[in-house]
């Protein structure tokens, strides 16, 4: 049997094997992802020549001065944070009962079926779903028709509609991690808890929630970051409101003022980095 030199060498050098395996994804991560992020962050310190629209490669703090001096950006930032938190909390409240039902109450056959049902909306186009909500919130839509006998007007387009639509869009991303976490929760724990005399509510609060806390955090990562970066839903159902991501989008497109857009984009980046630090500190991702 002839010796294969290459495979022998690889066998003898496990570190090289690992390096070769990781080199492609790491290069992608460092160059394509981190590199482009770093370039964007760096460009936030540039400005744009108002006459030609070309970028002036001189370091300046103009963009940050505008962002901090004009109060409207602070208002938009707080609003975006508020919506992100609202969506996260509402989705968590909706997802936990659904995931619990799927993991603990349904039979295994129905469980798989339920997972398919939950994932099914993800197959539909994002825009199709957003426009469906637009139709529902309109003055001649389903909600107006439903609330007519109660003499309540449809909430119409605005921040509330935006929040509800985002809750709907990201719900599968919140349900699935919680479902995965609950599936790993042994039933014997719940039985033991009731044997020790705990009521259902107490079991839920003291046993289940702490055990699935990492899953909730993992799901919240999706809803929080996706909401903070969303600029499309608010354009469809948001009426006349705007979020921080719209500020970035409008400045990338309309004025071609990429440095200003980059400066505005630093807000969600810093917020998410802060959130991730908090998540790591809480140890939520260690068991996930």
């Amino acid at each position, binding site marked *: 049997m002839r010796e294969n030199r290459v495979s022998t060498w690889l066998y003898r050098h496990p570190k090289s094997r690992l390096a070769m395996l990781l080199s492609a994804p790491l290069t992608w991560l460092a160059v394509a992802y981190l590199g482009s992020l770093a370039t964007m962050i760096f460009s936030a310190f540039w400005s744009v020549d108002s006459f030609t629209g070309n970028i002036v490669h001189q370091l300046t703090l103009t963009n940050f001065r505008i962002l901090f001096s004009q109060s409207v950006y602070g208002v938009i930032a707080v609003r975006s944070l508020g919506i992100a938190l609202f969506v996260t909390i509402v989705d968590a409240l909706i997802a936990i009962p659904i995931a619990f039902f799927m993991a603990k109450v349904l039979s295994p056959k129905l469980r798989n079926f339920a997972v398919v049902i939950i994932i099914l909306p993800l197959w539909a186009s994002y825009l199709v779903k957003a426009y469906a909500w637009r139709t529902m919130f309109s003055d001649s839509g389903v909600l107006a028709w439903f609330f007519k006998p109660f003499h309540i007007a449809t909430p119409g387009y605005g921040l509330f509609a935006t929040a509800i639509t985002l809750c709907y869009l990201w719900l599968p991303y919140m349900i699935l991690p919680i479902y995965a976490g609950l599936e790993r929760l042994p039933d014997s724990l719940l039985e033991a808890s009731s044997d020790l005399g705990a009521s259902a509510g107490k079991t839920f609060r003291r046993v289940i929630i702490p055990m699935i806390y990492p899953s909730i955090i993992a799901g919240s990562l999706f809803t929080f970051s996706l909401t903070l970066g969303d600029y499309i839903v608010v354009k*469809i159902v948001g009426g006349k*409101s705007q979020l921080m991501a719209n*500020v970035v989008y409008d400045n990338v497109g309309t004025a071609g003022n990429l440095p200003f857009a980059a400066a505005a984009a630093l807000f969600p980046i810093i917020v998410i980095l802060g959130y991730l630090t908090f998540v790591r500190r809480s140890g939520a991702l260690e068991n996930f």
Partner: protein
Amino acid sequence: MLRSKKVMAIAGAISTALLVIGGSIVATSSASAASLPKVPMAKSVGKGEGALNIIIWAGYAENGSSDKKVDWVTPFTKATGCKVNAKVGNTSDEMVTLMKSGGYDGVSASGDATNRLIYGGVVAPVNTALVPSYADISPFLKNKSWNSAGGQMYGIPHGWGANVLAYNSAKVKPAPTSWGSVFDPKSPYAGKITAYDSPIYIADAALYLMKSQPKLGIKNPYALDATQFNAAVALLKGQKKLVGEYWSDASKSIQSFESGNTLLGTAWQYNVNVLTGDKKITVGSVLPKEGSTGWSDTWMIAAKAAHPNCMYKWMDWIASPKVNSQVAEWFGESPSNAKACNFTADKTFCATFHATDATYAKNIYYWTTPTATCLDGRTVACKDYAAWTQAWTAIKG
């Protein structure tokens, strides 16, 4: 997010290196020109190169794929041998970005993109002597501030349209005649008014102030000094209370009218035509007495076009009477070629769109990119488009 310090250090080193390299490359290619860049103009049009890459507004280069009967690209390819690859740009700014990235021979640019392309050295002046169809272009479209610079034409006019005041004629009575009806703080339609979601809409407010507050001295709604600009912004901030929705997507605006969420506001003739055809609501439209903003599209050729002959042939083709009428009817805008009116399928088309009405065209203030150097020739400092964008963010709140 656990990562060993070593990997972080390597990643950091790589990205810093990239930044330095990237920065140096970009730095050498940027030139903050305060004057018109010198781009050579073609002196003759030779044989077609066999291919053409253009950036277009949706509907401008139909090849039969949307509707078998709507096709002016295939005959072009047959006649010139130039195979057309069209890329649809959704906004003027996307078009500017695409043109700057290179690889395209030409673009159908609106007036709020043209000057940026001209002064950025991205497009070349057009030798109109090489474009026979140019002779028949309506004279009120030639040598305008958005398609020429330094007395030289930088493109071939394609078509134009005005932003009209559309209203639900069943619910809005009496029919509006002035832009004041969308700015009136006591409007009975508060919450059901719409406005165009773009900083360029500030020009609409300035246009209204031009006629309603002549003391401000606004001569060109795209040339606003600090006082005039602040007045326009204040007007728009007041309008925000009346607005139900800002629109930039025509189909969204049409649906908003049909569902009753919007009762009146600025719209394109295209929107009005679709609403009239859908018959879900009765819609009326008017060009208000103050005049209106609008858009005038121009075909421009890239400075570094790989297929300049094909581009010249395309510009001549699309501006020729028969093709110009096809494109105008399909899209729903006024053709730039006066003779196109003889070829429209709908004989009342040109009348509906006021295609050859120079007075109507004169009352339209076409989208132009505002610059710090006032477009009306004044020596004071005017607000540039970056300022307009920031103000627009503040207006929407």
